[in-house]
Structures are given as C-alpha cells and as structure tokens.
C-alpha cells in the first residue's frame, strides 16, 4: 500500500461513515461563525426545533459588516441599520444557543480567519469550517479547512458533520529560495497565474517545497487563504516545528500533559514520502517576482516589471473575450507597463494580509515617506484587535499615520466593502486582499491585488513600483 497524503490522513481521521458510492459523513472539530452567512442557518435550526450539536466547537465573531471607525457607540452605534440588525442577530443567536462570541467591543474581535489561529482555536489536525470561502486559510496549520454555504452551516450546527465526497489530491511545490522583497502573496499569485482560477477545482491542495517551508506561519496562511482563488476548497501545509511553536501558549491551545500528547500526534501530520498525488505542479521560487493583478480575476496577474497583456495574443476565444472585458472594466490598454498605472486608493488589510508580519512589512516601506498626493485614501485595517494592539506597541500606527495613512479598527472593511469603506465608481486601488472581481471593493471600483510591501510602495509613489528598487533608495 502506498503512503497517505496529509489530506488523506486528515480525511480518514474524521470519517464517521462512508457509503459505497463515496458519500461520506465528515466530523467537524471547529466551526467558525460570522454575521453574514449564519442568520438563515440559525433560523432554520429554530424552525426545525433543533439545537447545536456541540456548542463548544463553535466560535463566533462579527467581522464582515462592522464599521472600522467610531466603535464607541457599540452595536447600537452602527449607522447602517441593515448591518446593525445583522450584528445584533449574531449576538442574539449566540446568546440564545450559548455560543462563545467575541463581540464588536472585545479586543479579540477581528476577521474570523485571523482570530481563529491567533486564539489557538485553529489547531493542527482539526477539521475547520466556516460559512466563508477563505476558511482555507486555516489549512496552514496542517488542518483540513474549507468554506461552506449557509445550508451547510445549519447542517454542521445540527449534526457536527458535513456530507462530503473526497476531493482529489494535488500538490503545489515551490522549490528554491525566494528573492529579496518577494513575499507569500507573490508566491500564491504566481501559483494562481500558473494554474488558473479553476486549476485546483475538485482538489485539495497541499503546498510544499523548500520555499513554502521557509515561510512564516503568517506567510503560509496568506498562501492557503488564496487556495480558493485557485479553485481549491482547501489548501494546506504540513506541520513542522514552526507550526507547533506558533500554537504553543495560545488561549484555546491544550496545555500540560495534553499539550505533549497533542504535539506527538501533530508531528504525524505530513504526507508520507511515498504518498501519491493525482496532480503535482512545481514552481521555481527564484523565478517569482513581485506580482500585480491587472484584470478582474486573480489569474490575470503579471510581475510588476511586466506590461498589461494583449488579448490579441490569446488563442482561446473565450479567454480572449474575458481579457477584453477585463481590460475595458479596468480601463487599461494592452502593453501599458504595470509601473505606470496610477492609483487612487490603497488598502492594506483583509484575511490575506492583515497580520502583524504584514503590517511590519508595509510599515518598513512607509517609514520616513509620505503617501503620494494623488492617493485619495490609504487605509490600514488590522486583522484583529490584538494585531492592532501589537502594532501600536511597536509604533507601527505612528509610522502609518505620519505618512498619511488612516489607522482603523479591525474587520473585513474594503476587502468586500460591505461597510462604509469602499471604492467609488472608476477608482483604482492597490489592495492586499484576495479578490479583484468587478465591483468587489465597491460598484465600478478597480482592484489590483498585491502584497503588503508592494501596496505600501504604491501608496508612497502614487503608482505601482517594484518594491525591490524602492527599498534600495
């Protein structure tokens, strides 16, 4: 018998039952809940007279809709009445069913995918689900983590299980050393550029290779976060010493003798040497340059020193038409050097890049510089209240504020623009988030995805610039 992949191991350990046709019941260890995709699930539960199966497995937090300014008024102070109702509904549901929730005024509040790992609520070897596609983030811990729809949220609440079919195994290896100034965000954008946004559909992706191993836990989370943008519901990285060190001492992590047992178990969470993958893709880390998306799909990406591509060079008719539509929406001409694209706004935040390491990387570029005159707004939105505190303790808030950035309260913010933070029609933004879809950051808004240092460099330059040249100056 050949060895098992990390995904195989996680799958096997959570299998409650499996039918002859492969339909399985998978047990869920951790259920993260936020305000946008849960109200209808709780309502369904109530209508059917059901109760959550295991309340202790659930951790809830409002993040998508919360304002990032003026939190003094609490929930009642949320100006948008529809958003307020949604946050209140989450509060009521958690109270009614006895679910742990980090309320809006709690320092632990933040983006659900930032706070899970931060609290040790995400542990290696777990199955983690959330009504949010970027749940793949938690796979960085050697966990099986994926997003689910609201009906599935209700299903997990009621049964602690999901009905699943096993995905195929895919491995993406990034081998070699990353060049200076090249970050986890560039790695994952380069991967998506290579395999396409449907490249991982039907697969669980394990990210491996020396360049992935060299990444910090924050960097691994950035990579796994965008597995969904490559079409894979789950992305993951094997457990190593870094994983264990990161988890140690976190509030929800085991302690004492239980910790020792857990660690011994977690060390097995790697793919066996003779494990078989259905598909393997290998990238050369040394060839990856800082990336910038030019279109309306994350696969529409080029290195910062390249130009906007020409649809006429594309042989596939459907793709060509997609490129034309994207260029029209983005108001870009083929052949335009990326570094000459001028920007109106800059957003540093989101579950992709709002952790302390991201803020440090951005601040290092910003320090001693000013936001360029043509930038109407430059926002920094920390991923959680604790990230914010940490950054303030390091003086990063001063660096940003002195340069002309705004320093906000934690939440999803302009990643999806459900609150007041958004692009106006036609505005162009360098964003550290994960989706450049039409209207994602506000109707008519134009999004270019980049890493935090590249976003910071764009903010102080007014246009894209290769951060590697900037830091030398």
């Amino acid at each position, binding site marked *: 018998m050949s060895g098992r992949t990390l995904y195989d191991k996680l799958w096997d350990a959570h299998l*409650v039952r499996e*039918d002859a*046709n492969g*339909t399985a*019941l998978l*047990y869920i*260890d951790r259920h993260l809940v936020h305000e*946008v*995709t849960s109200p*209808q699930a709780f*309502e369904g539960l109530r209508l*059917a007279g*059901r109760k959550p*199966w*295991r309340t*202790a497995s659930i951790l809830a937090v409002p993040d*998508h809709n919360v304002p990032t300014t003026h939190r003094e008024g609490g929930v009642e102070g949320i100006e948008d009445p*529809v958003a307020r*109702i*949604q946050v209140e*509904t989450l509060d009521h549901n958690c109270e009614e069913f006895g679910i742990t929730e980090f309320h809006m005024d709690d320092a632990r509040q933040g983006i659900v995918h930032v706070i899970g790992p931060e609290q040790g*609520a995400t542990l290696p*070897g777990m199955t983690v689900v959330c009504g*949010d*596609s970027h749940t793949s983030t938690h796979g960085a811990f050697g966990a099986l983590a994926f*997003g*689910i*729809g*609201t*009906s*599935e949220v*209700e*299903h997990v609440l*009621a*049964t602690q299980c999901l*009905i699943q*079919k096993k995905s195929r195994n895919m491995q993406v290896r990034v081998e070699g050393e990353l060049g200076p100034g090249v970050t986890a965000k560039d790695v994952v954008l380069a991967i998506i550029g290579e395999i396409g*946004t*449907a490249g991982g559909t039907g697969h669980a992706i394990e990210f491996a290779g020396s360049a992935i191993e060299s990444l910090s836990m924050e960097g691994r989370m950035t990579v796994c976060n965008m597995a969904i943008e490559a*079409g*894979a519901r789950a992305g993951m990285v094997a457990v190593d010493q870094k994983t264990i060190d990161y988890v140690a001492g976190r509030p929800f992590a*085991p302690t004492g003798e*239980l*910790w020792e*047992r857990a660690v011994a178990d977690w060390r097995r969470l790697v793919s066996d040497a003779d494990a078989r993958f259905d598909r393997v893709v290998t990238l050369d880390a040394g060839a990856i340059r800082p990336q910038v998306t030019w279109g309306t*799909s994350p696969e529409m990406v080029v290195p910062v020193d390249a130009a906007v591509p020409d649809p006429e060079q594309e042989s596939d008719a*459907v793709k060509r*038409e*997609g490129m034309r539509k994207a260029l029209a929406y983005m108001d870009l001409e083929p052949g335009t050097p990326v570094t000459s694209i001028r920007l109106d706004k800059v957003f540093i935040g989101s579950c992709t890049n709002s952790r302390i390491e991201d803020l440090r990387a951005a601040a290092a570029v910003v320090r001693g510089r000013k936001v360029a005159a043509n930038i109407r707004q430059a926002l920094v939105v920390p991923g959680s209240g604790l990230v914010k505190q940490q950054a303030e303790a390091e003086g990063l808030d001063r660096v940003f504020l002195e340069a002309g950035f705004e320093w906000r309260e934690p939440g999803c913010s302009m990643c*999806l*623009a*459900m609150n007041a933070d958004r692009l106006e*029609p036609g505005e162009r933004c360098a964003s550290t988030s994960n*989706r450049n*879809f*039409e*209207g*994602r950051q506000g*109707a*008519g808004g134009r999004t270019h995805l980049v890493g935090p240092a590249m976003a910071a460099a764009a903010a102080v330059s007014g246009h894209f610039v290769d951060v590697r040249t900037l830091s030398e100056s």
Partner: protein
Amino acid sequence: MKAFKTLDGLVMPLDRSNVDTDAIIPKQYLKSVKRTGFGPNLFDDWRYLDPGEPGQDHGKRRPNPDFVMNQPRYRGASILLARENFGCGSSREHAVWALEDAGFRVVIASSFADIFFNNCFKNGVLPIVLDAAILDLLFRETEANEGYRLRVDLEQQTITRPNGETIHFEVDEFRKYCLLNGLDDIGLTLQHADEIRAYEDRRRREAPWLFEF
C-alpha cells in the same frame, strides 16, 4: 427542500467565464437575514445602469438594455447557460437563492466552483456540467432561435434539444436522490446520530484536546 424531477424551460445564455458570486449577487444585499427576495438583484451590477441598494424599489431603476436578462426574448427563462468556473468566489449561498428567486432551476456550464456547486443542490437548483463543445452548440442554438427551450430530466439524466436529440449528463447518485425526493439532508444525517456519537467517544479518547475548550 424543493424536489426537482423534470423541467421544460426557456434558456438564457450568459456568455462569460469566471462569473463570480459578487457578480451574481453583490455584497450590499447580503445584509439581509432572510433567504428570499434576492431575485430582483440577481446580476445587479450588469443588469441595472444605476447603483443598487437594499430596500430600493427595483422596478424604478434603469435596466441595462444590453444585458441579456433584460432582453424580452429571455423573460421567464429558467435554464441558465454559462461558461467555465461559474460561481467562483465567495461561499455566499445568497448567489443560489438569487438565481432560484429569479426563476432559474438549472445552470449549465463547463465547470463550476465547488462551493457554489454544492449550494445549488441544497436549494433545489440543478447544476449541470457539459463538455465545452456541447456547450458551444447550445450557446449557438439559443442565440439563433428565439424561444429556445430545453427539457431537463434528472431521473434519466438527459437534456433534450428541440430537435429531439438528447444529451446525457452526470450527477452524483446521492445528490440526485436527495434532489428527486426533495430531502432535507439534516434529517438524513441525524438518522446516523448513534454513529456520530460513537465516533465522538472514540475520538475523545484518541485526541482529547479537541474536546477540551
């Protein structure tokens, strides 16, 4: 859940790949705590010329005459044709609720994003994957013939074209069974409650730290 057996429906072509869930239902409508009422905002950014906000009277907005959904010949369509990677992006089930609310019960594409695909089955909407070449043919026929209809038979797993020719499609056995019978899968899972408890007991011994918070 609504059962799905057969459907004889008007076809609407949406000739784009990577149609994402933000395009299907923009974020401002996700603030609703209900499952219904999303239909008027399906494809909102493409469908209207003026920006939309929840609670607006959508009848008073300016429809975009170039968008396929506003062409009179596709009024009442219940089958949507699209290209690859349909439903990519966020997990929002609101995307399926919006399609369903607007009258669509079948979506045909060359591939779907996994979460969206899953969400369809939970809401009585049938997503069908067809070969790009067959899809091309259906796009051509739909555009060339006003009033073009297809008959979808889930039991037989067939799509019948107006000329009587049938196209076979694949569907997962369990999902087909649930959809044909309109079954609530929570109820089905709870029939295995003893197995879930037995799993928990075993797991609690093997990995007690997972039950300690």
